[in-house]
C-alpha cells in the first residue's frame, strides 16, 4: 500500500472572474518508507500540494489517498480526525506553542486527539526527544531553545501520532547550512527507522540528496525526475 497517492488532482483558486490554477492534474505516488523531495520555485504550487496531501485543503478535482484512505470527499470534521491520526507536519516557521515546554509541545498532539493517558504521552514524548538528542531540553520553553533545537522539537511533534506520512515544509529555510544538514539527517534517520514516508517541500537543492526521489513542480505541473537520489 502506498503512503500517498494523488490522482489527477487539480486545485483552482477563484479571484473575482479570474481562475488561478495552483495545481494542474497532479499525479504522484509516494511509496511506503519513501522520502520524496518536492522541488520548485516560490509560487509553483508545492505548498498547495502539501496542504492537499495533509487534508488542510480540499482538491478541486481528483482523488487523494493517504495510507489507503481516500480523503477526497471528507468533511471538515473527518479531515480534523484524519490530521489527528494519520499525518504529521513539520512547518516552515516551526510554529511551536510558545508557552509549552518542548515535552508539552509533543504531548499536545495527543491531548488534542484524546490519545493515550498523560503518563503514556509523557513517556512517548520523552522517548522521541531523547532520540532527537533533546532529553536535556525537555523542560525548556521554545524561547529558550536554539533554531536547530526548535526544529528538532517540531520533528518530534510530527512523529508523536505515529503517522503513515509526514509532510515537511521548508525545514531548513531558517537554518544555516551546517544546521540544515543536521536537521535533514535527523529527518531522514527518524523517518527511515520507523518506516514512515515523507514529502519534503524545499527549494534548496542541497537538501534533496537526503531524499529517495525528487519531483519538480513548476506552475502547478509536476514533472517526475525519477530515480533515487538518496546518498545518505
Amino acid at each position: 500500500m502506498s503512503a500517498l497517492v494523488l490522482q489527477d488532482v487539480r486545485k483552482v483558486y477563484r479571484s473575482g472572474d479570474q481562475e488561478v490554477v495552483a495545481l494542474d492534474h497532479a499525479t504522484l505516488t509516494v511509496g511506503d518508507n519513501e522520502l520524496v523531495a518536492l522541488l520548485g520555485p516560490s509560487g509553483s504550487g508545492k505548498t498547495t500540494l502539501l496542504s492537499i496531501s495533509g487534508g488542510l485543503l480540499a482538491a478541486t478535482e481528483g482523488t487523494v489517498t493517504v495510507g489507503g484512505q481516500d480523503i477526497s470527499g471528507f468533511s471538515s470534521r473527518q479531515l480534523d480526525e484524519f490530521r489527528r491520526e494519520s499525518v504529521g507536519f513539520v512547518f516552515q516557521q516551526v510554529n511551536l506553542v510558545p508557552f509549552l515546554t518542548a515535552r508539552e509541545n509533543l504531548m499536545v498532539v495527543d491531548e488534542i486527539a484524546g490519545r493515550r493517558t498523560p503518563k503514556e504521552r509523557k513517556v512517548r514524548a520523552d522517548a522521541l526527544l531523547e532520540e532527537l538528542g533533546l532529553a536535556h531540553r525537555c523542560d525548556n520553553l521554545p524561547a529558550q531553545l536554539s533554531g536547530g533545537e526548535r526544529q528538532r522539537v517540531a520533528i518530534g511533534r510530527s512523529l508523536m501520532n505515529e503517522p503513515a506520512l509526514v509532510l515537511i515544509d521548508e525545514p531548513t529555510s531558517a537554518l544555516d547550512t551546517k544546521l540544515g544538514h543536521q536537521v535533514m539527517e535527523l529527518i531522514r534517520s527518524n523517518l527511515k527507522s520507523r518506516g514512515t514516508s515523507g514529502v519534503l517541500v524545499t527549494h534548496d537543492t542541497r537538501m534533496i540528496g537526503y531524499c529517495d526521489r525528487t519531483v519538480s513542480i513548476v506552475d502547478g505541473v509536476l514533472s517526475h525526475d525519477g530515480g533515487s537520489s538518496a546518498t545518505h
Partner: protein
Amino acid sequence: MNLALRELRRRPSRFGVATGVLTLIVVLLLFLGGLTDGLFVGSVGAIRSQDADVFVTSSTARDSFLRSRIDPELRAAVEGVDGVERVGGLGFALLTARVEGASADSDPTDIALIGYELGGNDLPAPPEPGTAYIDERVGTDGVKVGDTLLIGSAATPVKVIGNVSNSNYLLQGSVWVEPSTWRDALAANRPDLQLAPGVFQTLVVSGAGDPAELAKQIDAATDGATSSLTKPEAELSLPGTEQQQSTFLQIIGTTLAVAALVTALFFSLLTLERTGLYGVLKALGSSSLQLFTGVALQALAVTAISLVIGGVLTLGLVAIAPAEIPLLLTGGRVVFVAVGMFIASFLGSVVSLRRVVRIDPASAIGGGT
C-alpha cells in the same frame, strides 16, 4: 482545554488588563447591588419583618399605609374570612426622636414609630407599654439599649429595651412599640392623625392557601372596603420603592452589558493575535469547538478570578463605608452578580467563535500556492 488553562497560568500578565477591568466591574456591581438591597430593605424592612401573608388597607387609602384606617368592625369582617388564621394591627408614624439628656443643640433623629400587635420573623412580641425595640440603624445615631427616647415635639418618653435589625420603614430607623404607646404618641405629636382605640392603619393577616387568593377573599368579604396586598405587593406599594428598584436594576443590567463588551473586545483581540497559533493547532487536528472551548474557559476563569478579587475588595469597602450609606451585601446578591458575570463573559467570548471558525488550518503552512 488544558492548553487554555496552562496559558492562563504561564502567561498571567497577558490577562492582567482584562482581569483588572472585570474586577472593577465586579466591585461596581456588588456595590450597586448592595445599595439596591440596602435601600430596598431600608424602605420595606418593616413590612418584610412581619410574619404575614396579606396586608389589609382601607380601599380609600389607595394602598398607602399612612392614609389607611381599619376600624374594629372592618377588622371583625376580615377575621371572619375562611382561611384567615391570625390577624394583627399595625400602624406607622414618621416622627423625630431625641435621647433624653442629650444636648438641646443636637439634631433629633428621624424615626418611624411603629405600633404592632404580633411578633414577626425577627421581631419579638410587642414590649410592655412605654418601652420599645429599636432598629440597629437608630443605634448608629448613638441611641443605646437603656436610653429613653423622647418622641416628637411632645417628647413622649419611650425606654429602649432591645434591638432589632433590617426592620426600617421608608429609610427611617424604626422604633417598635405596642399599640397603646403608639396611639398615645401619635395623639400627642400628630393630633391630626390620631386614631381611636381599636383603629389601626393596616392589618397583617396570616392564613392558609395562596396569599393572592386570600387577599381577594378578604376584599370580597368587606364588600370592597379593603384593598388587600400580598407581601411582595405591599413592599412595592411603598412610595418610590418600585422606581428605585427598577432604576438600580437597569444600571446593573447596563454594567453587565459593559462586562460582556469588555470580554468580547479583549478575547477578540487575543484571538486575532493567536490566529497563527490556532492555525497550527487546527493543522494538528484541533476542531474549532475545541479552540473556542479554550477561549470560553479562559474568559470564565478570568471572570472567576475577578469575582474573587472584586468580592474581597467590596467586603473591604463595605467595612469602611460610613454607616449612613445603606449597604446590604447579601449572599443572594453575590450569587446574582457571579452568575450575571459568568453569563456576560461567556456571551462576550462567543464573539470570538466566528473568528476561530474562520481560521484556516492551511494557514499553518502558508496556504495559497
